[in-house]
Every structure is written in C-alpha cells, then in structure tokens.
C-alpha cells in the first residue's frame, strides 16, 4: 500500500509538471462540448423549397403561404417554369421541389381531388424522410383547411375525426443538445482517460525507465493501478467540467443523482483505462499505442448509439455491441441525466461494465511482464 501511494505521488508530480497536459485537460472539454454538441445535430432546419406553381390560383397561393409560415421550410423561389427545378435539385440549391400543376384549383373544386408532386433530394436518407414527412403534414393540414372552408363544417362529416396530441417525455421540447451533450461527455472522458493512461505507460518503455522499474520489488498490480488511478481522476475532473459547461451553455437538465453518475463513470473508466493500459503493455512505442487505441475508439464511438440508435442496428451488431463499453455508458448517462434513472434501473449496465473493468484490469496486469 505504501509503495502504491508512493507510485501515485510520483505520477502526480510528473503529470502536474507536464505543462502540455493542461490544454488537453481543460481545452478539450470546452471544444468538444461547445462545438460538437452544437454542430453534430440531426435536427432539420430551413430546408430550401423550390416551388413550381403552374396554376397561380388562390388555392395554390394558400398552399405556398402555408409553407412560408412553417419554420422548417424556406422558399427560395416561386416560378411557373419547370425547367430550372431539376437543375436546382442537382446543384443542391433546393432540398425539395414542390410542383403545383396547371388547373390545380379547378380539379380541386370540380372533382374534389387534385395532385401535387414532391421531389426530395435523398442523398441523406434521414433528412429526406424528415423533409417528406414535414412536407406531408403541411399538405394534410392545408387539405383539412380547405375542406373546412369550402364545404362548411358538416355534422356528419367533420374534417378531423381523431386528433392525436403529442407529448414528448424526458425531453419535452425535443432539444437536440440535451441528447447530444451527455453523449459527448462519454466520448470526452474516454478519450482523455484512455489515451493519457496508455501513452503514459508506454513512455516508460520508450525512455527506458521500465528497465529500472522492473528490477524493483514493485508488484505488477501496483504498477498498473498507479498508471490507472491518476488518469481516472483526471477523467472524472473533465466529466465535472463538461457537466458544468452543459449546464451553463445548454442549460441541460440533470434529473438523476450525481453520485450514481460518478459511480457508473468510475466503473466505466476502469474498463476503458484497463483496455488502454492493456494496449500499452503489449506495445513498444507511442505510435503503436495511438494506432491501436484509435481503432478501438472509433469502433466504440460509432457503435455506441451516439448518433444512430443502437436498436436500429442489425441484430448481430447489437449483439456485438455488448462488448462495447461505450454502449452501456451512453445509455447510462442519458438515462441518469434526462430520465433520472437510479442504480437499480441500470443494474444490468452496472454489472456489465464492472465485469468489463475487472477483466481489462486483470488482463493488463497479466500481460505486463517484468521479465522478458
């Protein structure tokens, strides 16, 4: 215990003395939180609409006005010329083209039905679907409106029979940053903890101090623990810093208990730091460590559910995701922060991450050889 304490003291002296560490520790949370959370958004804002109105009637103008009043759409131009529409879609100047054919109003009045055409740029499938459904809701709304105003409200045929009223729970105003900020926090603590610990250990090999350490009676677990604890502390410090930014910049709610969040994060970090140290123990240079950790990190992040829901992945990928510590943590942090989940709501995640942590720490200790 005394040796571990002394090893820790040595690590902290070295970390505090290393001036280049401070920007990483304090700038990274700011940059990641402020830039990533704001920039990485799936919200659809201001889709450009190119309207080809060949009818130029009251009915068509009403429809266009309806679009103008919708916050999701921005009308770039209204013409009666269909030739330019394709060009506009092709060079990305319009996200969607609305074609109102000639005699739109006439058909509507005479035959009680008329057709419209929507052309949506579907390079980004998700955005296209959203555009489509928003557009659709505007048209349905318009449809109901003209029915009501032209035919009068009939006793036997009310315009809307069932009204669905929507309530979004846990993030009632669907603020995207509330969803992203906790996710970015997970990336932040993983990046800081895993890289710093892994690089620190392999540096002892590079500068040759490992050779001197290996002839001392320091036990293997003491050495690995001394490499883990300081960076776990730094990662938790960054978590606090990041939470503070989320609160101040995004006004992110915090429903759960801090104790639960820090407890889970510590267990989570045990796993990712253990993995980082394991990579470091089997590597010889910082370059190798960087490359291998980067590989793992990239897969972990993309499969964590940060952007795309894990539930929409293929079954085999979901199954594989049980090996991804970030998958658990992503779920935990969002549930704790937004839903206020407690320890017992997340006990499966807790046990999984604990198992992961114990396994990684033990592997790192076992693979560390003092004798070649």
């Amino acid at each position, binding site marked *: 215990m*005394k*040796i571990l304490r*002394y*090893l820790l003291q*040595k690590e902290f*002296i*070295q970390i505090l*003395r*290393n001036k280049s560490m401070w920007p990483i520790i304090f700038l990274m949370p700011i940059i990641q939180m402020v830039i990533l959370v704001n920039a990485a958004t799936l919200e659809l804002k201001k889709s450009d609409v190119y309207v080809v109105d060949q009818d130029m009637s009251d009915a068509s103008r009403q429809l266009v006005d309806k679009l103008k009043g919708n916050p999701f759409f921005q009308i770039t131009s209204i013409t009666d010329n269909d030739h330019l529409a394709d060009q506009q879609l092709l060079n990305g100047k319009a996200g969607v083209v609305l074609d109102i054919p000639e005699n739109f109003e006439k058909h509507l009045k005479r035959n009680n039905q008329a057709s419209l055409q929507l052309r949506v740029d579907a390079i980004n499938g998700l955005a296209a679907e959203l555009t489509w459904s928003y557009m659709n809701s505007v048209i349905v709304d318009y449809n109901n409106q003209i029915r009501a105003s032209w035919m009068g409200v009939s006793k036997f045929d009310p315009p809307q029979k069932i009204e669905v009223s929507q309530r979004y729970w846990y993030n009632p105003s669907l603020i995207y940053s509330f969803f992203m900020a906790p996710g970015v926090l997970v990336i932040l603590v993983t990046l800081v903890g895993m890289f710093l610990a892994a690089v620190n250990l392999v540096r002892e090999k590079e*500068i*040759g*101090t*490992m*050779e*001197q*350490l*290996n*002839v*001392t*009676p*320091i036990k293997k677990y003491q050495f690995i623990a001394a490499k883990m604890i300081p960076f776990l502390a730094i990662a938790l410090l960054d978590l606090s810093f990041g939470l503070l930014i989320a609160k101040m910049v995004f006004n992110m709610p915090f429903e759960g208990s801090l104790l639960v969040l820090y407890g889970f994060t510590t267990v989570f970090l045990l796993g990712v730091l253990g993995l980082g140290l394991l990579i470091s123990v089997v590597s010889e240079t910082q370059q190798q460590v960087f490359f291998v950790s980067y590989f793992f990190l990239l897969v972990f992040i993309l499969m964590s559910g940060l952007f795309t829901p894990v539930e929409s992945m293929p079954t085999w990928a979901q199954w594989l995701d049980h090996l991804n510590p970030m998958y658990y943590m992503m779920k935990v942090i969002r549930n704790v922060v937004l839903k206020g989940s407690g320890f017992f709501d997340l006990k499966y995640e807790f046990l999984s991450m604990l198992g992961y942590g114990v396994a990684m720490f033990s592997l790192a200790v076992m693979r560390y050889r*003092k*004798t*070649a």
Partner: protein
Amino acid sequence: MISAENIEKSYGEVKALRGVSLEVKEGELFGLIGPDGAGKTSLIRILVTLLKPDKGSATVNQLDVVDDFRKLRKQIGYMPGRFSLYPDLSVEENMTFFATVFGTTIEENYHLVKDIYQQIEPFKERLAGRLSGGMKQKLALSCALIHAPKVLVLDEPTTGVDAVSRKEFWEMLKRLQKMGITILVSTPYMDEANLCDRVALIQDGNILTINTPERVTQNHESILWAVRSDNMYLCIRDLRKHPGVKTVFGFGEFLHITLRDNTISPTALEKYLKERCHTNIAINPIEPGIEDVFMDLMQKHDN
C-alpha cells in the same frame, strides 16, 4: 557470489549466448569485456532477472535468477547501459523514489552513496533530464546503490563517457568494492580490463577466457612485435605475405604481428621489408596487452 552455468539465449535466429559459464567471487570486481554485440547485455539482463535464459542456470548470492527472482531483485543493484531514470523528476525525487520502492530511505543508506551523491547534491533540485552526462551517471549509480545491494551489476557504464569521468568512475567502483560490494561490470574498452580483479573476454556469445588481467596477458603464447614503416598500408600487405608471420593487426601507429615460428629474427624481418622498398622501419618485441590477447583468442576461436 554470481555463478552462471552453460547459459544459452537466442533471439529468433540470432544466437546471443552460446553456453556461457562464469563464476564471480564475493567482493570481487569482475569485468565482462567484449566488443559490441558480443552478448554482454544479454548475459547481464539474465543475471539481473530481466531476461530468462533458454538453457542453463544462474544464481546470484545463492538465489536462482529464474525461481527466486523476487528475493533476488532486492539484493541486486542494476545500472542499465542506457540512462533510465525519470528525466522529469529532480535528482532528489529520483533518489527518494527508488529508495521508497525498495522500502528504504536515503538517510538509511546514505553512507553507501555519500561519496558519489555528494558530488551531485548541490544540484538536487535540478531535473535529472537537465544534468550533464557525467552527473547523470553518478545519479544512476546512486539510485542503483540506494537499497544497499550485495551485488552491483553495471552494463557498459563508461561507454560514451570522457576520459576523466571514466577514470573517476572506476575509482568510485574501487571504493564500493572496498565496502564489500561484489561488482560485475561490462565494457567494450579493453584498457579498462586492467582495472578489474578478474576479467572474462566474451565474443560472439562465447567466453574466450576468464582470468586476472595479468594472467590473461601472460598466458599469451605467441611472440609479439610492434612494426612500423613509412607506408603502413603496403607494410600490412607485405607482412601478410611473409610465411613466418601469423597475424597482422593495426594498433595506433604500430602494427602488432605474431609469428608462426620463433626462428625469424627482427633483423631478418627488417631485411625482408627493406627488400620491398620500405623505409624508416622499426621493429620492437613487446609485451602483449589485453587487446592483443583478445585478437589472438578470437582468431583461434574462429579456426
């Protein structure tokens, strides 16, 4: 104190040690002498428990280097060839760190390192990475001694060190020896052999001979002459053509030659060289040094 028996070690295809045996007595200053790549570092790393031998066994202070490595690590002081202390810790922090991990304090064993540490103590606040080469070496030696080891193992401590510091360093080793510490030191410098009690000459993973430096040179059977002339290059060529000459090696401004039989006289050889238009010829019989012996043993071994 140190005993190695038939140690073999290979790195893949490369054989670093081909059956090395040696014995170092208690209180001895023992030199392991050989050129780069001879296997010195491999042997030393096996003796300090950092490397496992493929075959053979070794004990240090009656403790097996493989089975009792844990106990052994407390009794060995090891100074690797490469500076391996923390450059971002100060002199004092490095010392305290290594004292503490061995469960001791600087004060407890201060008497051991006093002579050496006193020289760097004025700089104890300085980061180890900012010390000069000579001071780094003194710090490394202090750190290797701070847990009062019974055996001190040094891997090429004087490689790349200037002549004055080298001399100083050997004086420090002599003083440590007087305190009863057994010392095993490796070096590629043949001239340092004379400073050891006994030496082992090692080449290509084989030990060529083990003896006191005096005996090593005395046992040299061949007669040795130092030869020089104005044109050294032609001189080497012509001497190698002479049937009575066994080996010719350049040693500074002279050529050292050994003879196949003792029937040739210096005057006869001088006449032979004069006939080949050499001028300013000098031929002197000399006493062999360690280097001559090494060359000779190497030749014999290769044959």
